[in-house]
């Protein structure tokens, strides 16, 4: 399966999906008791700042899995920091990154997750953590998620759960984490912003709203994103609204100033007409982007 989304977004949704009960995606981790504990938390352990993409926790096992999604490049100092976290799992609880487990009882694993075989490129043998690889069209399955390299998870049941195969007829959910600040997600970003504009216009009436409010409505994880990512998405948002105006969608939203910043409020126009313009907007955008498709992974 080739997705027109960034590797980060695909992996985030796939790992979250594995922890949910969904008829159309494997619930392998949910069955073991894993739930999504926290997304993109940033915290310090022994003086070093780390920011995994995702932490999954199985409370009945007192076990957490920290995940970092990578393409190719790893930084050695990150490896050392993740190893420190795994060796001091109590700190995960004491810093609030993991919740609901007595600190002295928690154990933790860390894994890189990737579309390529990181273990092939990087020598991780000196670290006690593993890498997980996503691969499409393996045997009869749509997608295969497997451990690569020699290390396994410290939690035997979790280790045994791999490889996880997503059969044909099932597919990854993509709405839990709809887009990241990656080029491949630009179309999704615009679609979510278009809908946020419709919603806020309806909710706010003649009260103007600004680009941050649009982003918060578009991405439910906006509030806890890193400032770096926020900055990037904010700039996308300004660009989106400029394009929005140029394409004639300003028949629906009018630009004004609020607290010396640009803001928008709703003007009347029919939803059907707006829908046609929105479709054109997305079609033009996809053409402009010459949409990057991910390679088979």
């Amino acid at each position, binding site marked *: 399966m080739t997705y027109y*989304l960034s590797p980060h977004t695909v992996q985030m949704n796939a790992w979250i999906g594995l922890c949910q*009960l*969904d008829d*159309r995606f494997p619930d392998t981790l949910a069955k073991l008791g894993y739930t999504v504990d926290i997304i993109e938390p940033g915290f310090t352990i022994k003086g070093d700042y780390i920011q995994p993409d995702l932490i999954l926790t199985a409370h009945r096992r007192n076990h957490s899995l920290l995940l970092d999604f990578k393409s190719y490049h790893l930084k050695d100092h990150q490896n050392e920091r993740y190893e420190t976290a795994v060796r001091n799992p109590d700190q995960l609880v004491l810093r609030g990154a993991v919740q609901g487990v007595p600190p002295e009882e928690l154990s933790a694993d860390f894994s890189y997750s990737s579309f390529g075989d990181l273990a092939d490129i990087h020598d991780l043998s000196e670290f006690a953590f593993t890498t997980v690889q996503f691969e499409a069209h393996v045997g009869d399955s749509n997608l295969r998620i497997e451990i690569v390299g020699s290390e396994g998870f410290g939690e035997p049941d979790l280790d045994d759960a791999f490889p996880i195969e997503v059969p044909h007829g099932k597919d990854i959910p993509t709405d839990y984490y*709809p887009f990241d600040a990656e080029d491949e997600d630009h179309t999704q970003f615009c679609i979510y912003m278009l809908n946020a504009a419709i919603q806020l216009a309806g909710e706010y009436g003649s009260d103007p709203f600004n680009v941050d409010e649009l982003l918060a409505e578009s991405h439910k994880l906006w509030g*806890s994103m890193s*400032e770096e990512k926020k900055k990037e998405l904010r700039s996308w948002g300004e660009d989106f609204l400029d394009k929005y105006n140029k394409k004639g969608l300003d028949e629906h939203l009018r630009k004004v100033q609020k607290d010396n910043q640009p803001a928008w409020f709703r003007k009347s126009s029919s939803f059907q007409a707006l*829908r046609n313009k929105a479709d054109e907007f997305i079609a033009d955008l996809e053409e402009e982007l010459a949409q990057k498709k991910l390679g088979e992974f």
Partner: protein
Amino acid sequence: MPPLEPTDRRELYEHFQHVIEGTYDQLLEEQRLNYKQNMLKSFLVETNIEPTTLEEQFEHVTVGEVDYSLFEVLIDTSSDEDEEEILSFYLDSQDERFWTFYSIEKSRPAKDAMEDLIMAERSGLDYLWFPAQLQRYFTKLGEFQGAGINYDAEDVFSEEYIDEHLPFGELSIQSSGQGTSWLLDALSDADLKRFLSLSSVKIRREMEEGVVIERIDNNGRITTRGGDDIQAHLSFVEIIRDLYADLIRGIEEEGRIGYPIREIEAEEDERHSSGQSIEGTPIVINLANSVENLKEFADSITSATKPLRLWGVGTWIADDYYKVRGTDLHNNDSFTLEIKRDWIRLYLPDDACGNTALRIFSNIQRYYDAEASFGERSDPSNSKVGLTAQ
């Protein structure tokens, strides 16, 4: 019949009692109704507003309190037709979320007036959307006497889409009496079953209070075709409402996605200090009719038009995987659909109204695939009625 000017519930129900008795006797004796002698209709409506706000929201509506949580609602329909006519309804708002509007006005104008209220942009009102599984359950609540089948793809899909992908644009069958069960069984065995969407069922129900013959339409309208006790009708309406309310509650408890926020202990140099989790699971709708053209299908059901009133914009997320992000124009809730040939995943935010899920589901059954079903994981566990395939 005396004009209806009740001063309390008892008087209103006494009047309805006469209506039911008259209708019943007349139907039995003459098999027809006198001019202006109309049947009692109860419209169940889902709402998130106060009764008095109807007057603020709609210029042509007047609301007056009659009794505790009972209101007279007058709807001026003169703008719709040349002749001036004010239709009267009685609104029982005892249940804050599910109101009942009673009316003995003529069927068509009453139905149209309710539609105008409910379908108005952000009205705060919605129909009840009975899925086929729930309607089949209704037939077990009494002696099954009749059914209506309406498949109206023309209301949602373009002529070209119907020509290319569907066997019918419209299919309508009405049946009553003993042969109805046999007819439905016979049709269900045929390939036609994917297009046999129940639009109404008629049952005769004996209750402690008496007997009623009721026709239940798939959008929450219950018409008393005969009977001998208004209390039996009121009880029946309550049963239907409770069955539906259970379904909605189940969907809201199990089929919405939330993002709870959690603080992380901050240190001076930390870059941010809160995180979020995810709770809840999307709803999966399985299709028996494979979708031939995912984009056209998605565009049709999110074109902002009646009956679904969903606005959305879509894109491909893989070669055979289409996604729509949209807004429900009834209540401004967001939704996301992921569509494959044989199933749909529906995401609702944690503050969304469960009615959005049933509107989408029951309309897919009515306009595209009568055999559409919820996935097992998506079936509300607390409900007496399952929405999975039968």
